[in-house]
């Protein structure tokens, strides 16, 4: 069992470590800039968002092996659905919560 796996994904340990380090860096950057108030609020929001999207791509490539599947059509369908749902969560919440700026 174990041997089969390492043959299937040669060098996967290396890619896991790279992915892990990249994820940590991409988490530290937004934390650092927010704790230090490095930029204005609006720019901070954009920095967090960009880091989140990069994190998302790294997860897909390094941990979910998006490029290695035998049946890519399932993958594409799942990612399309995932993006629709993420869009609903993020854009929907932002839109709904704009009422807060009108109230305050």
């Amino acid at each position, binding site marked *: *069992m*174990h041997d089969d796996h390492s043959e299937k994904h040669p060098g996967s340990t290396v890619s896991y470590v790279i992915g892990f380090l990249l994820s940590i860096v991409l988490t530290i950057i937004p934390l650092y800039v927010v704790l230090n108030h490095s930029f204005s609020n609006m720019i901070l929001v954009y920095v967090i968002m960009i880091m989140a999207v990069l994190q998302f791509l790294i997860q897909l490539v390094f941990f979910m092996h998006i490029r290695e599947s035998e049946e890519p059509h*399932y993958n594409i369908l799942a990612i399309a*659905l*995932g993006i*629709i*749902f993420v869009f*609903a*969560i993020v854009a*929907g*919440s932002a*839109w*709904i*919560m*704009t*009422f*807060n700026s*009108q*109230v305050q």
Partner: protein
Amino acid sequence: MQTQHFFIVGDPLILGADISIILVSAAIIFVLTYFKKWGWLWREWLTTVDHKKIGIMYFISALLMLFRGGVDALLMRLQLMFPNMNLLESEHYNEIFTTHGTIMILFMAMPLIFAMFNIAVPLQIGARDVAYPFLNAVSFWLFFFGALLLNLSFVIGGSPNASWWGYPPLSELTFNPGPGENFYILSIQISGIGSIATGINFLITILKMRAPGMRLMDMPLFTWSVLSSCIVIIAAFPVLTVALFLLFMDRFAGAHFFTMTHGGDPMMYVNLFWMWGHPEVYIVVLPAFGIFSEVVSVFSKKVIFGYTSMVVSLLLISVYAYFTWVHHFFTMGAGADVNTFFSISTMLIAIPTGVKVFNWLLTMYRGRIRMTEPMLWTLGFIVCFVVGGATGVMLSVAPADYQYHNSYFVVAHFHNVLIGGTVFGMFAGMTYWWPKIFGFKLNPTLGKWAFWLWNIGFYVCFMPQYALGFMGMTRRIYTYPDDMGWTPYNVVSTIGAFIMALGFVFQVWQIVYSAKRMDRDVTGDPWDGHTLEWSTTSPAPYYNFAVIPKVEGRDAFWKEKKKRSQPDYKPEKRELKPIHFPKNSGIPFIMGVCFFIAGFGLTFHWVWLGVIGLIGVAATLYARSFQYDTEYVIPVEEIKKTEAALGRDI
């Protein structure tokens, strides 16, 4: 913390519960020891990775939780029966409606649908187990210990009291300093991990483990409904996990995500909660739709009408469920544009459901209908769900919702769809698959009594609540003055609740009676079924199928039976092969115990205990990661012996 705050002893109801819990536990320990059954319990149940046994354990847990949640409901209805009642104090009433909601949705409806997933899906698609049997056991034990943690709050530390949705700021530390809300958050988190794992497990099982020849569009509709439900679980449950995690950070680590001050936004919790909460109702009702589709088709002796439109509407609902959540808080004041969007999206989601109702009706049209118990539940469902759906469309109209919001109209509506949809659906599934799980049918006479008591009790209980909603009775009030004119409606409603409780008693009676008196099902196909689960014996052997069936098109077993009845039919020579099978494992159970210890510690802010529990969780994960010898081979001889013992010649 002082002892009298730790063990709740003041209230006579809770004291009674304390005593009965101790007595029941002592009795169970005595019986297991006296009959020397501890080894049996460990080997056959606690360490099992067999989907059928896991399904049975989900089912028993769900029935126990239905009882607990039902007792909560009866207490509430008694308190509200007459004005100025003194049965429950306001604080106690708050706790009871909170645990009623939490238990009924998360610890009754969820395990009940998971029971049906486990019992039917692998058999329906001709598989020997789920894709990840070990993970399946982990899911169950996380649910089980999550449920245990929540129920423990009743006697230790105090129950949560901020309603099943736990809105801040009421659920924040400022207004709710006790451990109750921690119990709520942590128990849902622990069982939520299990739910997500189940969603992934069954999605992969359905996509990857179907019998050769079964294309996606050949799958039974229950399997399709589970697939849709799993998509929603995978997409929606993480949102709840995040929302509850942030709330826990507020309470545990002094964060300010949802507080009133320091830039927190309580409405963001409401938003996130319903982003899970609305899809959740589809998670629990879609499998019920699947069960009704199976039942209607089998007991009308017809193929289902409009298979493709059934599949399309299931999938539409599973994606569309994600775009309606704001209708739970129209009155927040998000503005006309937001409310209009979600109002229209809510009305639109009624369309695929409507399509399904017509398909069920047209399947029955000119069918040879057998009025069995599963069929009765299905017919009861159609009427009940159409009423619930219609009031749902009323609620979707945002301006009108300002009138209905937070009234008993809403209470009546969601019980209408959840009891009429999910509960009736699971009862239909229970009576339909019972012979497959246990090897005997349930007694139909007692079942019909149970059905009519539930069905009549439902309308007697909840129809007056629609009226009460219009008359201004709001949700969650624990008493009311006698000049409101609500009294007669509340009296009728309480009577209805007790009629349903009587229905439950009949079901328990039915199960006990049938276990003793009903004949064994030796055919494996007591209903003249259409799908593969009826092709194996009842109960199915632990490997499900001695030979994996070959499938040609929909309703595979029905076609097979037609072929067999031809005069020139020659049975195919089937060759037995050794089966690779997963070994039992104690790790899922131990992991559940560790999660329970961690959850209990964190509930009381005993960080040391929490750390010990989490180290245990890490240790079990570590142990499993380096376990390579997880499978064994069932030799052909043993398969032959088992099949012969079940009366099948191979």
